[in-house]
């Protein structure tokens, strides 16, 4: 499908995510399956009508954590390529905030890897979402990333 050298891709972007281009990026002749996850802005949150969202990130660390997720995915599942792109800044209802695509020779690995990637991203990548409503804004409830219990046992 393409003659360029293909590789994993991780990006934080401030414009609309081009899902089609990302799917083409991971697609190769030796594969047979691509699973994608497209997370986009819902029109409500806990029963309140959302106006828009804003995402911010600790960008250098977020990119590092996204690369770590890709490395884990390759280690755990027989996949070919993975791309993980997260958008930052203001997003309107229906716009994609995160897009993940995984290609693999067989579908089981592609499903497992895609799901692992989004689940792990939501727990470990330093990105924050602020939800704007007609009458105010709140930081979304999030998850506390797992941390080493004590420096004594760390390097």
């Amino acid at each position, binding site marked *: 499908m393409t003659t360029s050298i293909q590789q994993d891709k991780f990006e934080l972007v401030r414009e609309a995510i081009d899902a089609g281009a990302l799917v083409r990026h991971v697609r190769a002749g030796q594969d047979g399956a691509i699973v994608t996850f497209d997370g986009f802005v819902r029109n409500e949150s806990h029963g309140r009508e959302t106006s828009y969202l804003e995402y911010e990130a600790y960008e250098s660390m977020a990119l590092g954590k996204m690369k770590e997720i890709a490395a884990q995915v390759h280690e755990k599942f027989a996949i070919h390529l993975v791309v993980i792109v997260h958008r930052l800044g203001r997003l309107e209802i229906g716009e994609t905030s995160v897009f993940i695509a995984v290609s693999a020779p067989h579908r089981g690995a592609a499903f497992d890897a895609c799901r692992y990637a989004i689940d792990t991203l939501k727990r470990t990548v330093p990105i924050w979402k602020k939800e704007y409503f007609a009458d105010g804004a709140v930081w979304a409830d999030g998850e506390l990333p797992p941390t080493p219990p004590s*420096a004594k046992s760390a390097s």
Partner: protein
Amino acid sequence: MAGRWGTGYNFCMPSVVPSLRVKVLFFGRLRELTGLAEEAGELPEGATLAQVFERYAERYPKLAGFRNSMVVSRNQEFAAWDTRVSAGDEIAFLPPVSGG
């Protein structure tokens, strides 16, 4: 960001204790609460991340209430609170993450 480095708040330490320079970052609601995205700080040698946080909690008392609902990173890696800081470290205080 580099331009802000020199404008940072310096901890008031007894001058006899050797000190080290670090960069300190706040994100999400912690950034909003402190009004501080990033600053240069000076810390006594041997300080732990918990001690760095305590310094900021003295300066911004509302921070203290978030101690159990946040994590800290050192050089872009999540870190234990008893990790000792080294010169040049980049330390960040991070609320629960909510990307995706």
